[in-house]
């Protein structure tokens, strides 16, 4: 049984506008953008009790009740799901473990919502897409890490990768790259990251002798590489 979204809000100490408690849309302070924090009259986050969904009118953060609990508690989506549905109820395909936000990043959320049968048939493709996404993000993060260490900006780069992990919905990203860095034999994705770091390092050196902004060139080199890669694929297809 799914919990009520208003209960989840109350349990997590969100400030609810008491006047809306009996209404269809319960309003409360938005914990995601805090844009309404300083105005006692404003409540930007709307909780729809009937559909059990939330949306902030200001920052547009939105989703279902499980995503909501996951976001406000900081617990992984899967953990929240298991809290209500149990662990071994049924064997899930790994693709079914992906959260709505994760699915959105690989453009499968809409298919799941509106064409469920097609989604069910495509689980193999979904998980392959997710793995490709993870691989790509690891390459980028690893390149950042190498440049960060090279330019004595370790703490800054760690914060940067933490932010990336949040944006691309890979909670283990920091751990993934740090443990690979500490490994005696780097895997292929790390070697690709190393090449990108090399390109970024070179460009940074050409642009300015200081390596202050080398981190910027990592993203540049990364997107260049991705671009080349997809172009190559296209050529292959044409050929």
């Amino acid at each position, binding site marked *: 049984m799914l919990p009520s979204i208003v209960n989840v809000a109350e349990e997590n100490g969100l400030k609810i506008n008491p006047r809306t408690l009996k209404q269809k849309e319960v309003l409360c302070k938005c914990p995601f953008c805090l844009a309404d924090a300083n105005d006692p009259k404003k409540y930007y986050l709307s909780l729809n009790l009937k559909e059990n969904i939330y949306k902030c009118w200001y920052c547009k953060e939105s989703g279902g009740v499980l995503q909501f609990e996951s976001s406000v508690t900081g617990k992984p989506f899967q953990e929240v799901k298991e809290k209500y549905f149990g662990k071994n109820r049924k064997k899930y395909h790994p693709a079914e473990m992906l959260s709505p936000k994760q699915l959105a990043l690989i453009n499968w959320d809409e298919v799941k919502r509106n064409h469920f049968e097609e989604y069910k048939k495509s689980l193999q493709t979904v998980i392959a897409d997710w793995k490709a996404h993870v691989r790509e993000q690891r390459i980028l993060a690893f390149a950042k890490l190498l440049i960060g*260490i090279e330019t*004595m*900006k*370790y*703490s800054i780069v*760690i914060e940067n990768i*933490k932010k990336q992990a949040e944006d691309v919905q890979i909670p283990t990203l*920091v751990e993934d790259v*740090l*443990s690979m*860095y*500490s*490994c*005696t*034999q*780097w895997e292929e994705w*790390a*070697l690709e990251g*190393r090449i990108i770091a090399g390109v970024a390092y070179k460009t940074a050196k050409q642009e300015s002798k200081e390596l202050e902004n080398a981190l910027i060139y990592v993203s540049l080199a990364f997107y260049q590489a991705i671009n080349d890669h997809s172009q190559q694929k296209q050529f292959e297809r044409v050929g």
Partner: protein
Amino acid sequence: MIKATFTDGAALYIVVPSQGEGHGNVIVKIKKEGNGFVITHSCSENQMDAHASCDHKLYSLVLLKKHLDNYPVEFIHYENSRIHLQPDWIQIQNIKVAEC
């Protein structure tokens, strides 16, 4: 060579390339314990015997020799355990050691 140096406030960590084929690192932890030091890392050479000699150990020793006034120290223990880079470590300037 020493690629990078870190500290967690209690120990020093040096990043040394692994000697294997391809690319990779070995992180060596150097920690003062009483009047001696404990040097911890894991590489292909010290798998069987924590006291086996390898470059990682060598660098650590050179580093200690170079920076301790009262070298030799009372004891140096070697331990075999894999050290992972941690997000809360602080990066410090690489200690310049000619031999590394």
